């Protein structure tokens, strides 16, 4: 982390960048927030640890409009989003100085708390320099430990790899965290009977409170005005009704990002109700991979997306019924 701070200071000092986009220490051990630093002095609050899960690529949309360059800290998975945003002309590559930061898996405080750990006062073992094996947690109710893996976000268990797709330089080491196949959950649902599938999603989506956190955090959902907010479409609704509306919202959102979603996992991370929203996006990704050839959004900045492309012998929609 010190290395990052030092580099940030250098870049600020020599005028390469006008500001640094990173994370600021929070008032609890686990709530650092995305923040801009414009002075050397302000960098004293800079932090980069296991709780810095936010994908800062999305902030670069706004930062691209500012004067001067922004040094932005991107984790390997964030760089896919950044590439995708370049492809869609939403960020300006020339306005970014990308520091690829190492990643040893990001932590999910909800998961840690689910293990009965509450009244947290401090957490050791989440620093980027730590070996990411065990977390030692001091609480009002005594000291607790938790395996780092058990506190990790779902997305880190199915990590796409710790290679940065775009960067100006890389700082910090990474650690491989992948220990599951990202389509396993999708396969499990695909194998269900229709009633079971329906019941599963009905139960999950009934929790939705239409807070739009999934949408607003999503780097692919960067529309200036969402169709669900705009009165120009009859889809502008805010109610959370159990029947169809939430499903409509989530299907349309997933379709909206289909072929553009890099599977960064932010939607699931931020959902206050813990809805596994990535299951929608991954279904599309899996279908695209199987039907139109492997495609990873954000791997490059110029390839044609699967929904703006075709081949003469693409599968017919009836394949959905045929494969049963």
């Amino acid at each position, binding site marked *: 982390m010190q290395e990052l701070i030092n580099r940030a200071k250098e870049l600020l000092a020599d005028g390469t960048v006008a500001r640094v986009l990173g994370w600021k220490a929070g008032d609890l051990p686990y709530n650092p927030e995305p923040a801009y630093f414009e002075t050397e002095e302000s960098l004293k609050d800079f932090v980069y640890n296991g709780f810095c899960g936010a994908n800062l690529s999305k902030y670069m949309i706004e930062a691209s409009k500012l004067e001067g360059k922004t040094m932005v800290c991107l984790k390997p998975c964030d760089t896919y989003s950044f590439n995708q945003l370049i492809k869609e002309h939403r960020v300006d590559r020339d306005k970014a100085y990308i520091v690829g930061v190492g990643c040893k898996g990001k932590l999910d405080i909800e998961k840690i708390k689910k293990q009965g750990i509450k009244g947290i006062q401090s957490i050791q073992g989440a620093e980027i320099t730590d070996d990411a094996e065990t977390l030692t947690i001091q609480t009002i109710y005594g000291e607790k430990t938790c395996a780092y893996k058990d506190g990790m976000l779902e997305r880190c268990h199915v990590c796409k790899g710790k290679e940065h797709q775009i960067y100006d330089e890389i700082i910090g080491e990474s650690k491989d965290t992948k220990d599951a196949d990202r389509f396993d959950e999708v396969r499990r649902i695909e194998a269900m009977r*229709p009633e079971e599938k329906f019941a599963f999603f009905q139960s999950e989506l009934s929790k939705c409170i239409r807070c739009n956190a999934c949408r607003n955090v999503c780097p692919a959902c960067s529309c200036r005005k969402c169709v669900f907010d705009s009165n120009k479409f009859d889809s502008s609704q805010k109610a959370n009704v159990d029947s169809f509306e939430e499903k409509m919202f989530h299907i349309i959102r997933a379709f909206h990002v289909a072929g553009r979603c890099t599977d960064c996992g932010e939607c699931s991370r931020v959902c206050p109700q813990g809805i596994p929203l990535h299951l929608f996006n991954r279904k599309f990704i899996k279908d695209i991979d199987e039907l139109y050839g492997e495609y990873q959004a954000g791997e490059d900045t110029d390839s044609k997306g699967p929904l703006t492309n075709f081949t003469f012998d693409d599968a017919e929609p009836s394949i959905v*019924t045929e494969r049963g």
Partner: protein
Amino acid sequence: MSIEAKEEFRPKIVAFCCNWCSYAGADLAGSSRLSYPADVKIIRVPCSCRVNPMFILRAFEKGADGVIMCGCHPGDCHYSTGNYYARRRMTLLFSMLDYIGVENGRTRVEWVSAAEGVKFSTTMNEFVEKIYSLGKNVRLEDIRCRN
């Protein structure tokens, strides 16, 4: 289900037809007097690529029991490539609907040329029969629209 119940159920079926092939195919079915059930109502669009997945979801939300989209055969699109895009969009949409537990068969895509009046009529007959066998769409409709 009893026969009575089946008689009561009249499905609402929306058919999107592209102006150049399928709508003309439907016209041909008409002028050839090839009947299909009145439950099917056709909406004319310039090309199958004009059909937004949102339209299909909207139809279900408002109580449609089946939605079918017809376009020119791949390779014959009036706009040369429209139906190729439509094909991908619909495949993914249908797959997603299947995934969230909507009964298979409530949606369908069929390529019908302007000369295929018979195919249009056969397709619609088949599709309507399928929807009858599936019954009312309850999984996607918004109950507020019921009356």
